[in-house]
């Protein structure tokens, strides 16, 4: 399995955090929240979701149509086993980076620069 790209990590994290409520709107909002202060194009989220679904990292299903969506269904997403595994591996890698940087720059490395 290829390593996850940075944006893929963010989208997978969003799906993990949202649980059963993960669909286009909520995923985009969560991704924007996780990527602050960057603005994220909605289309980029859809393209990444499609790509990760093709890789088997996530699965999707359609819900019942709702009136507030103009009678259209939601496409819900969930993390699959390979996605979970890839996300864990990414987290471990990030952890190693954090520890290395903290060791070199000290614990205050995470403070925002003035």
């Amino acid at each position, binding site marked *: 399995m290829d390593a996850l790209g940075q944006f893929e990590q963010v989208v997978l994290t969003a799906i993990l955090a949202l649980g059963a409520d993960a669909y286009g709107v909520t995923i985009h909002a969560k991704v924007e929240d996780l990527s602050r202060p960057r603005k994220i194009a909605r289309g980029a989220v*859809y393209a990444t979701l499609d790509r990760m679904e093709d890789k088997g990292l996530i*699965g999707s*299903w359609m819900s019942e149509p709702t009136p507030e969506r103009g009678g259209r269904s939601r496409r819900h997403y969930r993390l699959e086993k390979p996605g979970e595994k890839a996300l864990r591996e990414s987290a471990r890698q990030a952890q190693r980076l954090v520890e290395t940087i903290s060791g070199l720059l000290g614990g205050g490395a995470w403070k925002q620069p003035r």
Partner: protein
Amino acid sequence: MEAAALAEGLEGAVERLIPPAAREAVLGDLRETCSSRGAYLREIIKTAPFVIVSQMLRHLNLPVLMLQAALIFWFFPGWVVALALPVLLLREAFQPMTRPDARAALRNAMRLSFTGLFLGLVTPVPLNAALALALLSGPFSLLLCGLRTGLIISMDRCEANLPDSMALAELRAFRDGFLTRLRQRRRLEMVALGLGALCWPRLIEAPLGIALGAVFLAASLYLFHLDMSGGDKEPADFHVLRRRYVEEVRGDEQLRRFLCWLWVVPGLAAAHAGFVAMVVAPPEQTLARALLAVLLCFGAGAINREERGRVQEEISLLDRLSEKPSVLA
């Protein structure tokens, strides 16, 4: 009133920028988040390029695309291939998710037919092959559409037989049945294409016969390769299995569509090379050739379109298929 109708028309046109496979989810999301119609339309225009490219990649079947490109390259100059490839990719991305409607097909046929007939009658030019073709196009288009409607109705009889939910074991058995049928059909096609590859260089003059033989051989070897590749380990998860099944159904449909066109090419070559000359006297040869070519292309196009509608319907049903808890669990 008119302005509102215009805005609705515009909205409908802009909504069509989103490929059908993603339309429902994406437009629903935008409808849910955008407060005004203007914001909704702006957001569609901003989102569409991402979704289109994503769907193009999703529907890309590289070997089939390369075979199509080889075929186009043989018959047309290189710039046509450069132009045709994006069009082919876009066509894949924008394929409809429903079956075609038999009534709409007939309605369109009537319109086309009577327009052709009317134009043929009112055009004041001397009677020549082109005019004769135009005059003939009226009743001829009705005949073609009769064929197409018949195809749609016959395809409608093939019910996409899928329940709302399935257990993992049921889905696995369902997919296994599909794969078995697929393997049997592909073996037959492989043999037929191999025979075609042997025959065309003898039946059709060089260099077209040789080129056609080469494309048939490449297609046959590709089917052989598909038959020999054993496939990956069977997924133990319902959603992954369903996803793979959808990919297999879609890939097969793309391949079949190409093969259908491939079988038309020798007919077109024969029409062009003078097969018609043996049957029809010289003045009507041009007309007869044109009619044969149109009939062949229309037949292949209609079969592909209706078959694709049925497959897309199956894919959208699979998309909505939910997992039923296993009885054994």
